[in-house]
């Protein structure tokens, strides 16, 4: 295993320009195996664009992305390279309602991924599907149901199981719990924490929810208008933010004693 020592994901000088708009500029970071990194920032700060470039859905204007020692800055040239990349980095999207094929049950979705990636026989595939279902906390009946019969939280669990089916080293969570109720959110976060303990997977957590960031990650990057304005240990950055923008993000989290009227009445 050549990829045990070095970083599982390393991004350097990453830049993306849409037309005349610079979405991401000079982004550099490394992710060690088993560690988790948060990318925070308001909407439009470029964090999702970073995620899309890392998984290959968007082509970088400049810069390099290396996952598990293999460059992925350019589109895959063939099917083998494509599936190899699928086993390195996976992603779970924000919207639980569109991230599953409406015609496919969880079992069928995970099974299809296994068939694309491996030559397992049906019994082995069934066993792995069962293991993944246990891991994300879904029972047989839920796994065999079509997405429309599942709740948002259950769908996100299916999406997580499907992403884990390739046994990726890095899982990108692009606002993956943002659309869920707070209690369901907590359950899914616990599932994610358990999975990391069990599988030693690394997370890249894209979020604007600082509480979630604190719970799941060790390191954090703060992005504003496509540029990293602050980085460091999650606890340090959130407790003692250095950059004005980070302080602003932290101040906009509603906490105990927070009353909307107070902010409104403050004279301009």
């Amino acid at each position, binding site marked *: 295993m050549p990829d045990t020592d070095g970083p599982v994901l390393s991004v350097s000088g990453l830049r993306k320009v849409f037309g005349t708009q610079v979405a991401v500029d000079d982004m550099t970071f490394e992710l060690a195996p088993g560690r988790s990194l948060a990318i925070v920032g308001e909407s439009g700060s470029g964090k999702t664009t970073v995620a899309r470039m890392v998984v*290959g*859905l968007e082509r970088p204007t400049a810069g390099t992305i290396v996952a598990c020692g293999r460059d992925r800055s350019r589109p895959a040239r063939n099917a083998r390279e*494509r599936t190899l990349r699928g086993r390195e*980095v996976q992603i779970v999207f924000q919207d639980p309602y569109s991230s599953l094929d*409406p*015609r496919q049950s969880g079992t069928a979705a995970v099974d299809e991924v296994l068939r694309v990636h491996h030559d397992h026989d049906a019994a082995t595939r069934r066993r792995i599907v069962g293991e993944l279902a246990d891991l994300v906390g879904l029972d047989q009946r839920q796994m065999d149901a079509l997405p*429309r019969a599942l709740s948002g939280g259950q769908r996100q669990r299916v999406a997580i199981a499907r992403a884990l089916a390739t046994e990726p080293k890095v899982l990108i969570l692009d606002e993956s719990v943002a659309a869920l109720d707070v209690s369901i959110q907590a359950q899914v976060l616990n599932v994610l924490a358990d999975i990391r303990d069990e599988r030693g997977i690394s997370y890249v957590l894209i979020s604007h929810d600082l509480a979630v960031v604190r719970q799941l990650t060790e390191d954090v990057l703060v992005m504003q208008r496509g540029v990293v304005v602050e980085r460091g240990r999650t606890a340090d950055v959130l407790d003692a933010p250095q950059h004005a923008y980070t302080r602003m993000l932290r101040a906009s989290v509603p906490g105990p004693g927070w009353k909307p009227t107070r902010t409104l009445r403050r004279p301009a």
Partner: protein
Amino acid sequence: MSIPVPSGVQTGVAAEVLDPVAEVEATAVRGGLRRVRLGVLGWLSLVVVALAAVLAVVGPFVRPFDPDLSDLSFAYVGPYGSHLLGFDGQGRDLFSRLLVGARTTFLGAAFVAVVAVAVGSALAVTAAWFGGRVDRVVSAGLDVVFAFPGILLAVVAAAVFGAGLLSAGLALAVAYSPYVARVLRSAALRERAMAYVAALEVQGFGAWRLCLRHLLPNISGLVVAQGTILFGFAMVDLAAISFLGLGVQSPQADWGVMVSEGKTGLLQGYPMESLTAVLCIVVVVSAVSFLGDRLESAGKQAHR
């Protein structure tokens, strides 16, 4: 009496989201064609189409008389004994000719619809999948084909490849495919933008698997609807082409040919042949169009 507008708007939205029937319907059709509300007219149309389809298959076997047996002494004789609709201008049994004619009429239209839908959806999915330059080239190509009316294309095809059902059918299929492609392209574009397609791309799925096993099945409702609508159009246009003498050729029984041959009788005050054939075409085409409209609106609703 002042109702705060924002809260009113919000309750409206909430009611819409929470309406269980609306949600079940929307999600049900999304997955394909399950649970499309047909209504009385819809069921009636379905029965008519099914009946016509059965006739197209068994018609030639259940016909009471030989459709090609001509006895000029019976020319234009009205309903007579077991000859339910009487005879045409050449003294052939009309009812038998209608039964046998159902086959070419139906098969011809089905052929056009299937080929047009196949070509159209292939173009639509290709354009939506690759986007950018490919999309622009395909769309421009469609606009060019749009400029040719189906019948004109069929006349040209008849001139080049000879008159007959095959050349007429192919010409119509080519002329129709842009209509399919245009509707399906926008549906495919919407589907292409769904997160699950991106997720499966990241999984390393190839374009073929993704398009054929995920994208296309999810717009299958619209594909079937388009096919049904085109089937109706094709039946009318093929009849018109046969009427012009460029489609099915004369001694063979076909509803379009019968309309054409009946026009002599029509002028002489014996409208039976033209009328019955026209009636068959109108009834089947109306039923098919109605079904197609229903399916299409269900499909579009699901895609909103």
